[in-house]
């Protein structure tokens, strides 16, 4: 079956674009999460027609399809399960059309977020979503995970910047959803596709909304003697009705390692550093800056510094955006969570994490999209010590539960994938989950598309989903309801 699939694929794509060597398959066995799976074949198509052919071949040969962009996902979304064909979109990398006057562009899914931004900048335009992985993640991956980023505080998540999506469905048909404007008529199915993590089809083109670059930008760096002071400033800035473009918080452990790499001049002695970006018209930026500085002073900020020039600003952001990668310099292994709390309860959430860290005797470092109440607690461990992983997973679950009790959520932006799917029942009732599953089945009744992600494939409460036929789904052990 696999040999046959390989022959079929090679016939269409050529042998260089089909990988079956065990070592190659292993390299495609993971994304940027801590999970490793395995697959049977990898295909790297160059255009939509080839994607269609790959999907059809997978279906014919009984393989599941795992769409993959750059593999920077943090939830195991593109970590394949046995029995699958990984379809890599990195060669679909044309910017098809930029229409400045309509404030839109059509791009292929493999275009890297930052590459698009670089093309747009000379036109005074940008694509607003800015995940910290913007330099390496694909637009297709951003859409499929509904990526956020520091600036989604002011500009919204990826979903706010997508007009239309072209999708290859599980049976190989190509369909467009949405139109070249915000109002497309009919059900807004874009919303289902954005954030679907590859479970409804392979995205082959995206129509993105373009945003004008602001006239003025200012980044303020604030340092604090306690994390609570820092969080207090964040709450007050928001309560005061100020509208920063981004508010990011890092604790001391993180600041130290990123400073080693980015040399941005972060105060490495501060217990917490907050970056606040203000943008808009020059006058407004100046006024907001004064107001923020006032609030910071009243909360005992030990450092209040504005970026001296665009290069300094870029270094400050570079530091923040490299935080995730720099963690191994603290501990050999870590698990990162992506919990959300109402942003007014940030201080409380940080305190809850502190309690868990203390009870469990673990080091937990913080990177926080503070403006959105989106915490990324990083729990450090060393996998070589016996039981360490189980310990961390238990601590993580405590954090998740605590945030849910505050009215929060299990994922702010990284998606559910494999890593967080077992938390879904903590947030949703069985009926909710079945409804989600029915929606998915409407796109992919035979479960060819990234099965086992977001929702587990087994254990529905009310029998099979509409149109569900067993077949392509790989075996799977365990689920949230077993």
């Amino acid at each position, binding site marked *: 079956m696999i040999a046959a699939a390989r022959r079929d694929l090679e016939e269409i794509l050529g042998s260089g674009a089909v*990988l079956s*060597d*065990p*070592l190659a398959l*292993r*390299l495609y066995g*993971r*994304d*940027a999460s*801590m*999970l*490793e*799976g*395995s697959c049977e074949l990898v295909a*790297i198509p160059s255009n939509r027609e080839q994607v269609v052919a790959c999907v059809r071949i997978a279906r014919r040969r009984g393989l599941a399809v795992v769409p993959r962009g*750059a*593999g*920077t996902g943090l939830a*195991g979304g593109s*970590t394949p*399960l*046995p029995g699958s064909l990984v379809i*890599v979109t*990195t*060669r679909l*990398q044309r910017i098809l059309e930029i229409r400045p006057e309509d404030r839109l562009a059509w791009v292929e899914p*493999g275009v*890297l977020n*930052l*590459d698009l931004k670089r093309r747009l900048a000379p036109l005074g335009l940008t694509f607003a979503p800015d995940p910290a*992985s913007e*330099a*390496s993640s694909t637009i297709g991956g951003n859409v499929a995970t509904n990526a956020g980023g520091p600036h989604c505080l002011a500009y919204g998540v990826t979903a706010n910047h997508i007009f239309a999506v072209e999708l290859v469905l599980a049976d190989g048909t190509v369909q467009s959803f949405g139109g070249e404007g915000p109002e497309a008529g009919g059900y807004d199915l874009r919303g289902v596709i954005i954030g679907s993590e590859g479970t409804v089809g392979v995205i082959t083109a995206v129509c993105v909304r373009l945003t004008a670059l602001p006239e003025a930008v200012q980044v303020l760096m604030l340092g604090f003697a306690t994390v609570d002071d820092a969080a207090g400033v964040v709450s007050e800035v928001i309560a005061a009705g100020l509208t920063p473009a981004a508010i990011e918080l890092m604790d001391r452990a993180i600041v130290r390692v990123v400073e080693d*790499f*980015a040399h941005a001049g972060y105060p490495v002695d501060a217990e917490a550093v907050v970056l606040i970006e203000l943008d808009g018209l020059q006058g407004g930026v100046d006024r907001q800056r004064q107001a923020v500085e006032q609030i910071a002073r009243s909360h005992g900020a030990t450092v209040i510094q504005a970026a001296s020039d665009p290069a300094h600003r870029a270094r400050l952001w570079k530091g923040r955006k*490299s*935080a*995730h*990668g*720099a*963690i*191994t*310099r603290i501990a050999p*292994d870590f698990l990162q969570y992506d919990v959300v709390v109402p942003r007014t309860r940030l201080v409380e959430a940080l305190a809850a994490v502190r309690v868990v860290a203390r009870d469990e005797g673990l080091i937990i470092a913080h990177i926080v999209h503070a403006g959105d109440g989106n915490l990324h607690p990083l729990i450090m461990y060393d*996998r*070589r010590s016996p039981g360490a*992983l*189980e310990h961390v*997973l238990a601590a*993580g*679950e405590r954090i998740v539960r605590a945030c849910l009790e505050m009215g929060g959520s299990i994922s702010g932006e990284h998606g559910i994938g*494999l890593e967080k799917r*077992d938390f879904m029942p903590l947030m949703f009732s069985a009926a909710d989950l079945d409804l989600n599953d029915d929606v998915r089945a409407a796109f992919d009744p035979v479960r060819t598309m990234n099965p*086992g992600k977001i929702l587990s494939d087994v254990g529905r409460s009310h029998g099979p989903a509409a149109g569900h036929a067993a077949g392509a789904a790989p075996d*799977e*052990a*365990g*689920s*949230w309801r*077993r």
Partner: protein
Amino acid sequence: MSSKLPAGVRFLGAEPGAVAGWLTHDAPTDRDIASCVGCGLCLPHCPTYRLTGDETASPRGRIAAMRAVSEGRAAVDATFSRYMDLCLGCRACEDACPSLVPYGRLLDGAKAEVMAVRARRARLVRVLGLDILLDHKWAITALSAYLPFVRPFLPPRLRRLVPRVSLRELARPIPAVTLPKGHARGTVAVLTGCIQDSWFRPINRATVRVLARNGWKVVVPPQTCCGALTAHYGSLGAARRMAAKNAAAFALADADWIVVNSAGCSAQMKEYGELIDRPDVASRVRDLLEFLDEQGFEQPAGSPVARVALHDPCHLLHAQRIFAAPRSVLGQVPGLEVVEIADGDRCCGSAGLYNLFEPAGADRLMRQKAANVAATGCHVVLAGNPGCAVQITAGLAELGVDVEVLHPAELLDRAYRRSARG
């Protein structure tokens, strides 16, 4: 949660009791491998990933392949070798890595492993060429003497890459001692290089003149190849031998500084601390423009050209993280505008001997680079590394544009001569 993972999925990590599949003592260390979190921030900076979009041709993928061997899940086999051979060794990934993964060191280790499994013939070519020939300067000179006669008979691809060597130049070695102009500021020892000294001796002459002009006594100790090519092609043992010879020779020369005008070589000599525990030598090594920038230099009265495109050799930009120094030095030449090359941080494909062993990828990178150089509209491009100079010259020739490739030392030398003429 872990107990509920679907079949076939596990958390990363070696199984207890796993035995690494490494074959040599030079293998990448577990510690270096573990420093990669797999975040993928290096991917867009890697030229081979940009060309292919393929994880197996990416830094993260290559490190994962090493991890697979170290965890006993894969062997050092033909596939592993292929992945390592396709790497340019440009180290752009290292520069971009927030986890500070020492990719260059990992790759050297992996290449040493690959060397151990290469077919006999491939190994022989490398051992003869890199370990033995490069270590014997007279042999390079002797072979180079034949080049003018052999060149016309070489296949076009190779001919393009082999520069014209003048026999008159070959007959006149660089003097062992050159006295400074005016008051002496100190002594610098110069690495003349293996290939550089035979094929590009005028660059070495220009380097010596520029240093002497700026008050430095220049000595050229008897020396051998820096060992860079050898190390990057898997012969760490031979590279250590060359390094030890050089370290001894340069220590004897008793110079204040060791100045190197080829980025690949200065990068390598700066590693002598780690490679052979000679930090005393390594800490005195400076790339030429880095040296002039640190020590200050005499401003020429004017520039021989109005605009130059500046090429950043990977081993300067990524391996040594030197970006500002060349710009600062050239910026002080009156009447000279330095023009940036688009995608200037992308390797030209020369990459040591990559253009010989991996022609397809190398040619694509060469064409991109040549086109970007041509797009600057400059008539001169500066390249401070012989491999890059050869590659860019070949690319420009193929494109049919008339751009002169100069070493920064040659430009400064011309500027000084021009001011001397008044």
